[in-house]
């Protein structure tokens, strides 16, 4: 029996909570319909392409699990399904680490997250080095052997870098997988970070790194009508303006048109439009 059976057989009771289902109005976007496709895929009655399409509808916001009286961990199962369904891609190239000494701040500016480095430097009271992480740093879509080699290279690159500061969930997940010790930028202003966690529901599931509303695909990559409607549904669930501690959240929510800022006012705000990768 598929791990998605319970959700697939449910009378769609969590649908009022799902921002994608509510925002788009599309029956296919309800957690139940997604689960039904994955059950069919597990039974050979749906193609892998269809299963991938269904699994990437989820924003990973956890609202369905929260709403469900059985607290079915559908988001976690969909995350695993997406990993299993992703096409194989080579790991990204790793840019060199800037020379010098001092703490390293790992940025993801091209994801629309804005620049953290100046703020971190001000808090630490000393200069920092900036390392711009590429998209897909965790190499989830790479073949297992390639991924292992990539993570080993990442660990070697940042070994001896001293303190490594991170403000983006994708980066944090990669560093955890690579076994690289790092610190979360929220530690530099715990009060503001705690307030942001409360405002953005990041408390759901525990401490960062996590990406509520991060999902598998940036919202901006969806059809514009869908993305704006989902963004409105997401924004309706979050008391605004929303402050986040995770750059992944910032990029996705901003791409959906939600009024969102870093957890300390004005830090790292970028005028660059979010990436559509």
């Amino acid at each position, binding site marked *: *029996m598929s791990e998605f*059976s*319970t959700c697939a*057989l*449910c*009378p*769609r*009771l*969590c*649908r*009022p909570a799902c921002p994608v289902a*509510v925002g*788009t*109005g*599309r*029956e*296919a*976007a*309800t957690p139940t*319909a997604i689960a*039904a*496709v994955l059950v069919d895929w597990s*039974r050979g*009655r749906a193609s892998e392409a*269809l299963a991938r*399409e*269904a699994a*990437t*509808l989820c924003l990973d916001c956890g609202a369905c699990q929260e*709403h469900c*009286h*059985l607290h079915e961990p559908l988001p976690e199962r969909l995350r695993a399904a997406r990993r299993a369904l992703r096409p194989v891609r080579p790991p990204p190239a790793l840019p060199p680490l800037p020379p010098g000494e001092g703490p390293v701040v790992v940025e993801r500016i091209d994801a629309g997250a804005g620049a953290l480095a100046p703020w971190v430097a001000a808090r630490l009271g000393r200069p920092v080095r900036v390392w711009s992480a590429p998209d897909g740093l965790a190499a989830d879509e790479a073949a297992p052997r390639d991924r292992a080699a990539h993570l080993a290279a990442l660990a070697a690159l940042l070994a001896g870098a001293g303190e490594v500061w991170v403000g983006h969930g994708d980066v944090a997940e990669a560093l955890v997988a690579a076994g690289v010790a790092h610190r979360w930028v929220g530690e530099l202003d715990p009060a503001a970070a705690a307030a942001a966690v409360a405002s953005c529901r990041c408390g759901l599931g525990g401490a960062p790194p996590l990406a509520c509303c991060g999902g598998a*695909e940036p919202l901006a*990559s*969806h*059809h514009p*009508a*869908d993305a704006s409607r989902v963004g409105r549904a997401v924004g309706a669930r979050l008391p605004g303006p929303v402050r986040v501690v995770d750059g992944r959240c910032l990029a996705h929510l901003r791409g959906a048109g939600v009024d969102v800022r870093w957890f300390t006012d004005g830090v790292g705000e970028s005028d660059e439009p979010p990436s559509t990768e």
Partner: protein
Amino acid sequence: MLAPMMPLQASGVDASTAEIDLRAVARDLWPRDTLAWWLGGAPPRPDVVAWPSTAAEVERVLAAARAEGRRVVTYGAGSGVAGGARGVAGAVVLDTKRLDRIGPLDPDRWTVDVEAGVLGEHLERWLAARGFTVGHSPSSISCSTVGGWAAARSAGQFSSKYGVFEDMVLAVDAVAPGIGALRVGEGGEAPPEWMDQLLGSEGRLAVITGVRLRVWPLPERRWLRGYRFTDLAGAVDAMRALLQAELWPAVLRLYDPVDTRIGGRTRPKKARRGPGVVERLRAAISALPGARERLLALPLSLPGLLNDLADGLASGCLLIVGFEGEGEVVDASAAAAEALLAGRAEDLGPGPGERWYASRHAVSYKLMPIFEGGGFADTMEVAAPWSRVVAVYDAVRAAVRPYALVMCHLSHAYPEGCSLYFSFAGRGDLNTYDRAWRAALDAATAAGATTTHHHGVGRLKRAWATAEAGPAIAGFEALRAQLDPEGLLSAGGPFGAPVAALPPPPPPEPVDGLVAVAVARPGGAEAELAWPWERLPAPPRWQRAPWQVGWTEVRGAVAGQPCALGRAPRSAAGPDLRGWLAGQDPDATATISTAAPGPRWMGIGRPPQPWAVAQALLRADLRPAVLTVVDGALRVGFRGPAAEAFGRIAAAQVPGGLAPAPYEAAPLPAGPLEPAALDDPAVVWVTPQGALRRAAP
């Protein structure tokens, strides 16, 4: 990532032909289709899904479908359990979920406008933030739409107080392929009698795009209690007594002995630190490959034995009684109910009622494991007058027990009868499922029940609903010829090929609180009428309060063929054709509600603006049997064991008070009526929403 939408054939409305979208709308929650899917089948798939976001876009979708020669299936949240929104090969599915606007709320009139695609949970949350509720709380509230409620004539768990859904509707906006946009009810130009048929038309006459609903302030107080009866018949009689005492409980739920036992409903759940032995054992077995499917297979394969075991273990049945509303009225009602039930049953205190209330929306979670276990689970809701309730219960259980474990609870109670909600779980293929249903519906209707109470007709029950409507279907077809002459709108229900003709419902008995009268001369009844309308039909529902019943059953002839509609206490087997039938036959008869004998109280006062005061009494949760103004004097009358208590509450709220007077019933005005200001000297009637005067001829 979702496939991009594309315009539907020059309509400009967002649409999709992607497989992922078509799969999702190919079925609703009809358990037969769920079973078929689980066994490897698939329902017919439509060709395209469209998402109109305005009534104008709905018109464009219908026009585009006509141009392409496609039928149209309307799809809300797909929560119907009768296959009404099931896929139709080649059709356009008109998904209403982008008709999702709520408002405006009129806090002075207690009304709200809401579009058809709004989910029930979202509507209630929106209203609650503003201090109001619709009072409609089906167990599907989080997965059903307002449009679906209207199309299928839904009823919620608190219907005994707030009414069934058609009691809540003040106006309907719809788009019909034959005539375009229309509005019926308040502010509408369409003939008022169209409302009777649009509600319950299940997508066959028009696409409902929005409704105006009456709302109520959030209740100030809620009182819940459980009572254990030794036998079902005694409990049913207690339900009847409570409703006919005019106490208007919000909730009255009676679980049969099997449901009471299996649900553990009379015992509080023990607090545990972790899973118990049974849960750990179940989890361990479930973890074994293939074991979970087999866990339920054996017992479900032996339904006869399972039913016998359940009967053997059962002892007693649980009645949950609940009141909610204004504090004083709740207190008076609850006190009278406690007195009425004293000596009839064991008082279990508030626990059972409060536990039910806390988990009242969780019942649907219990069905999934049965399908996962290789079985099927389904529910059947019928309704019967009090004199037939036990007979229907016995007949259905006897008919279904060879196929499935069956249990039942009674709810949605009226002064005239109640709904019987059977749940059954069995194992087998689609043939077993079909045989179980055929046996159940044949038994229920033969014993005097109506085909359906609130789940709609769909494909599941359309044969029986068609037989129940009989020759009155001509009325439906006549309206359909106007609204959808080309037959564009396709849905599973409500009518199709009939089963063999149903026997007419048996005549009412005294316990049913009904009396037969000639429609042309309702005043000829010998009994005291509960709602003595000047003539029949009574004013349309939006011009009377939910509890002010018009008629129940109408009998007449269509082209010489006898016809009986509206099986007591409420038949929602498709559109309401009673008014049409009465209009066809000058000799038509109707059964109307009688008032139970018992205490009466009346008071007379002379407050300024008496009709405004009258409306205030209705808004204070009082339900007078008499509420009228004669020669400037406000006359307020109550019936039942709480009559004097209600009278005291009313008197305290009337400026200058109410002086006790001999009780005297007053005729209720019939139509046509039109809205009026509360201080208009021509006012003859008042509802919680406003005042009415006689319309100019």
